[in-house]
């Protein structure tokens, strides 16, 4: 690396598109790019994209300090079940834990439920004589010969390409798993091994062993892939670092990503949340709902104090995409995000049973897409409704690259909705908008309620192609008073790659009642996690002194089913900290449940340490297309838009790129940019801030 190596490039490989964003703080350049993903070898699009974006920025590969990479490869491998042949070793008597699961039906009324296909079928799950009790007593020593025999059978007879090991109580007593790992590696030095105590050291065997199995399932493929990306990058003259985006919104090293690829499961969506966090920091917003609405889904995430909310479990590869409980549970750190089946492509229909209108979760997707795309779609979608309502300009979709056709849209509404219900086309279209917005509002309210938060304290940041179109009405439904729409709806999410800090979340389980906790043991756990976290983050580009550590205990009243994360006063604790910890637990409890139960005993289950370095920052002014001319806030045209409760209103239409800081607009108004249109309802005031965000007062 030379001193000129100051450019950073974010690369997001999605199912359809590979998105790129480049930022060079020294040369003050921001560039974005988009090209089709090359599914057979995704590194091809990565290389072509990087070459193109460097060319546009007039930079050389040597000028690149780092490439930050996010990928849907892990998710897709699990959804499409194209991963490795995995063998699993379990404690004797428990080979079926991952098949039996939680024993619940995720839909109460469906007699013919589909369950997720097993990542490791029964014949490849072998039992090993060994047993450790919940208090760490060894009830049965590890049968090492059985480990050898089982591994050989899995590899030689069953063709296993990776092995997972999941023994009972390994979250606190990992010695048998570790020994089994050594034995396997001695037998087959190149065979990837995933130990449940390393992948997800948390109590509850089904979730932990599922996570280890999923890690093993994606490991061989991801290792090959990351090696190839690294090698090909280097072959172009790139001498910088390659970092990988984690599901929790931090970045990590290639080595760590190869060891624990399952932690990349949500690496793409995490970027959007990190972008919102960045914008919330720029604009000084403490409580933000991040709202990202695209073609098939809408994603919501809360960002408090510039940090996206986290959670430590996730469901991958759902049989029914938006149905809780229909996927594989994973214990991984992810941005706590809800995904709703509501996007521009969500389809409207009349339910034959009840006669009511439904919108989504079925989506027209990219093909055939909404009716207005003219690619064969015949069922009206949300984008079609937006077109009927005047929110979208048929001549300026994707900056005019794609012409939208209104006539077939009207015909689709007539045959599918009007003929069934007698509701006129415009009212049907308004109905689609009302239903889809209410669906998103309900899901968001529920998400906030689960955390005991009040939407009225939040500001919404909206992006994604359909986000700014629906955000104003959604904010209104949620009684959110302020809405911020950053520049470049399609770019905003990718910015997250460039602002993400080196970060890692570590966890250890140790279950004890608060007053009986052995603090020496807890302090040792934190010391161990701190050392490992520091080493990893330093490798991922952090300066050692700059790392911050956030120790958290997952606590609950004895007997309760849900743990509450409680921030601990330090990494070296003693009984003297008990009053503080107890107080914080009650405060967190009251926050969520509006009451406390003081006399009931408290226990801690897991101990987490979040380690992170400061994130990067970006000056977005470099992102305005050079061609745009600055001017006063003057509309370029006018269009009629149908608003709920207000009827058809004449709306001035503004060019987003011509708006400069300080510009003011009063709704109703439409503000158009290439990938999206921001709809502002009657009476709302819009101000363009110093970062070129639209700041909208929703009243």
């Amino acid at each position, binding site marked *: 690396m030379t001193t000129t190596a100051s450019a950073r490039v974010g690369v997001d490989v999605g199912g359809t598109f590979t998105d790129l964003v480049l930022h060079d703080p020294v040369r003050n350049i921001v560039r974005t790019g988009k090209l089709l993903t090359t599914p057979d070898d995704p590194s091809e699009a990565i290389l072509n994209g990087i070459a193109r974006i460097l060319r546009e920025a007039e930079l050389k590969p040597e000028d690149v300090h780092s490439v930050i990479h996010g990928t849907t490869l892990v998710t897709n491998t699990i959804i499409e079940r194209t991963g490795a042949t995995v063998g699993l070793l379990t404690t004797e*008597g*428990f080979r*079926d*834990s991952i098949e*039996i699961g*939680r*024993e*619940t*039906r995720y*839909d*109460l*009324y*469906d*007699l*013919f*439920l589909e*369950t997720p296909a097993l990542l490791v*079928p*029964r*014949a490849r799950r072998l039992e090993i004589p060994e*047993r450790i*009790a*919940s208090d760490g007593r060894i009830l049965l020593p590890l049968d090492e010969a059985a480990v050898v025999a089982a591994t050989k059978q899995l590899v030689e007879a069953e063709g296993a390409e990776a092995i997972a090991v999941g023994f*009972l*109580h390994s*979250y606190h007593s990992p010695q048998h798993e570790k020994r089994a790992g050594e034995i396997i590696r001695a037998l087959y030095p190149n065979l990837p091994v995933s130990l449940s105590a390393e992948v997800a050291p948390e*109590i*509850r*065997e*089904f*979730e932990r062993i599922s996570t280890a199995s999923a890690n093993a399932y994606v490991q061989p493929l991801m290792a090959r892939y990351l090696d190839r990306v690294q090698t090909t990058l280097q072959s172009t003259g790139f001498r910088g670092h390659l970092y990988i985006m984690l599901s929790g919104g931090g970045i990590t090293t290639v080595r760590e990503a190869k060891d624990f690829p399952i932690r990349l499961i949500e690496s793409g969506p995490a970027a959007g949340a990190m972008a919102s966090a960045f914008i919330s920091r720029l604009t000084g917003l403490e409580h933000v709902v991040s709202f990202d609405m695209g073609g098939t889904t809408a994603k919501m995430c809360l960002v408090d104090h510039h940090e996206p909310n986290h959670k430590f479990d996730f469901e991958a590869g759902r049989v029914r995409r938006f149905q809780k409980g229909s996927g594989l549970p994973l214990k991984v750190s992810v941005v706590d995000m809800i995904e709703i089946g509501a996007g521009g492509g969500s389809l409207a229909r009349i339910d034959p*049973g*009840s*006669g*009511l*209108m*439904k919108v989504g979760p079925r989506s027209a997707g990219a093909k055939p897409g909404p009716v207005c795309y003219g690619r064969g779609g015949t069922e009206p979608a949300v984008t079609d409704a937006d077109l009927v309502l005047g929110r979208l300009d048929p001549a300026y979709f994707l900056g005019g690259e794609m012409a939208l056709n209104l006539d077939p849209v009207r015909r689709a509404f007539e045959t599918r909705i009007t003929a069934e219900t007698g*509701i006129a086309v415009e*009212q049907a279209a*308004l*109905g689609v908008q*009302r*239903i889809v917005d209410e*669906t998103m509002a*309900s*899901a968001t*309210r*529920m998400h906030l*309620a*689960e955390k005991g938060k009040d939407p009225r304290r939040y500001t919404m940041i909206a992006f994604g192609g359909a986000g700014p179109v629906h955000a104003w009405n959604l904010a209104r439904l949620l009684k959110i008073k302020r809405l911020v729409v950053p520049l470049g709806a399609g770019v905003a999410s990718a910015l997250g790659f460039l602002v993400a800090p080196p970060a890692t979340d570590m966890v250890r389980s140790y*279950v004890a009642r608060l007053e009986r906790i052995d603090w020496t043991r807890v302090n040792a756990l934190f010391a161990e996690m701190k050392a490992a976290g520091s080493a990893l983050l330093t490798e991922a580009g952090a300066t050692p002194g700059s790392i911050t550590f956030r120790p958290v205990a997952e606590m609950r*009243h004895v007997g*309760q*089913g*849900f743990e509450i994360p409680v921030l601990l006063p330090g990494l070296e604790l003693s009984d003297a900290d008990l009053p503080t910890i107890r107080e914080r637990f009650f405060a967190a409890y009251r926050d*969520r*449940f509006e*009451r406390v139960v003081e*006399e*009931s005993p408290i226990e801690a289950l897991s101990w987490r340490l979040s380690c992170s370095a400061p994130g990067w920052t970006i000056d977005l002014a470099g992102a305005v297309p050079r061609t745009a001319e600055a001017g006063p806030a003057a509309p370029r045209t006018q269009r009629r838009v149908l608003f709920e409760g207000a009827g058809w209103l004449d709306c001035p239409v503004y060019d987003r790129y011509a708006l400069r800081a300080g510009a003011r607009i009063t709704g109703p108004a439409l503000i158009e940019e290439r990938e999206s249109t921001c709809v502002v309802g009657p009476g709302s005031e819009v101000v363009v801030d110093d970062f070129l965000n639209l700041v909208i007062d929703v009243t």
Partner: protein
Amino acid sequence: MSDATPDAFDPITLEIYWNRLISAADEAATGLLRTAFSTIVRESNDFATVLMDRNGNSVSENTGGLASFSCILPRTTKDFLTRFPAETWKPGDTIVTNDPWLATGHLPDFTVVTGIFHRGKLVGFSGSISHSPDVGGALWSADCREIFEEGIRIPPSRLLREGAWNQQLLDILLGNVRVPRQVLGDLQAQVVAAEVGARRVAEFLEDTGLPDLQGLSAALSERADRAMRRAIAEVPDGTWHSEITADGFDDKHTRIVCKVTVRGDTMHIDYAGTSPQIDRGINCVMNYTHAYSVYPVKCALDPFTPRNEGSYQAITVAAPERSILNPLYPAPVSARQLTGHLLAGAIYQALAQVIPNKVIADCGGAPTMRALFSGTRPDGDSFSQVLFASGGMGACPHKDGMSATAFPTNVGAGSIEAYESVAPIIVRKKRLRVDSGGPGTFRGGLGQEIELQLDTDAPARLSLLSDRHQNPAGGILGGLPGGPSVIAFGDGTKPHPKSRTSIGPRESVLLLYAGGGGYGDPKKRAREAVMEDLRHGYISAAAAKTIYGVE
């Protein structure tokens, strides 16, 4: 009264309002689930929240709640209204009961209902039902002879009066239970849930400008009713019979005789001929009989319309008085699920004769098999833990049944690691039970084999609630029964399957959970499917050969 008639709501507005009220009920459920103490609530999903109009008709219910509970709660609320007339309710008034006949059929379930007020007027009710950690009396068991042994019975009473707790009632209740703190904690959680629901409905009325819920409730009810009638109308008219035998108690097997009649868009289910009530706690009160009769019908005919008061208007259910499906006070009823869970199988066996593609074979997990251990831990603390696990579901018309999954109830299982960390018990094994899935063209789901060992030097008490030892889950249309339940101690002796017994120090007990029935002739099962089952050890080589004719 509201001026709004059902027609005043168009299909768009109604969809929006319905979803909003369902999510209000979901929010109430979240409040309950998260603050409840009893493991039974969260591990077994043993609760529901319901929002009702001023007449006690259900408007919406939480999405994941126990189907029988959401069906019963409005009935209980209507009874409350006869005792506490609408005009006497004040904001903050909350009524509670656990009366088996008025509510859910046994004492451990508490029903808690709060009034919803909007602009000073009573507009509806927000309620929940939740399984309490304890109600005194005998441990949760099946062998009591009178309800008085089964615990304390609270007739409909004010739990809160204008927001103030009824301390006398609490003192009486908490003075009669083993774990007062937890019982109170769960009741408080129910009150929180009721308040959340009431608040959300009031906000909804404020936002929409509706004066009350009456017109909307009628419109929603009409939509649900319409969907169910449409589904029933697709079933040809006729009458179909079935009969199911259960283990009953001791040598008294119990018989469920079922007659399903479809006329146009209505259905009648009649249990005439069913065994008389008995002097053990497996009697199933009419509320529970009704709930577990209509629920399986909805699953088979109209699974996707959200449920409310209208859903079951087209279906009538009758059971003779003093029968095991309609016992009279003071019959013991604590383990009423051992009878009530069997009704789905009886109804499906009848309906299999006319709509074979919409029903499943009998389920091994119906009724649920429960083992409750209680005693003292080595550290001196007491413990009381129910082991949650399920048998296999019956096979479907086009695929195998789900293994280790309950139906018609939706009981989850907790983690063994978590179980062992609270109870001094070592689970020696918990795995699928080979050959327990009833053979058929489509195989029944597998049951489980679970072996537990007491890890203390003192004995513990063990209460067993189970059936299907002599009457396994039947197959349909040529399918064969699943494996029966078995419970045996380490020395081979078998305890009474519905009894309170004890288990000695370091002694072990083996529980074999029943498999689901098969669907269709096993000889017609695809050869590849049999070979796969064999390869993964779901069936033995002997079964492949003798039952399926595959070597």
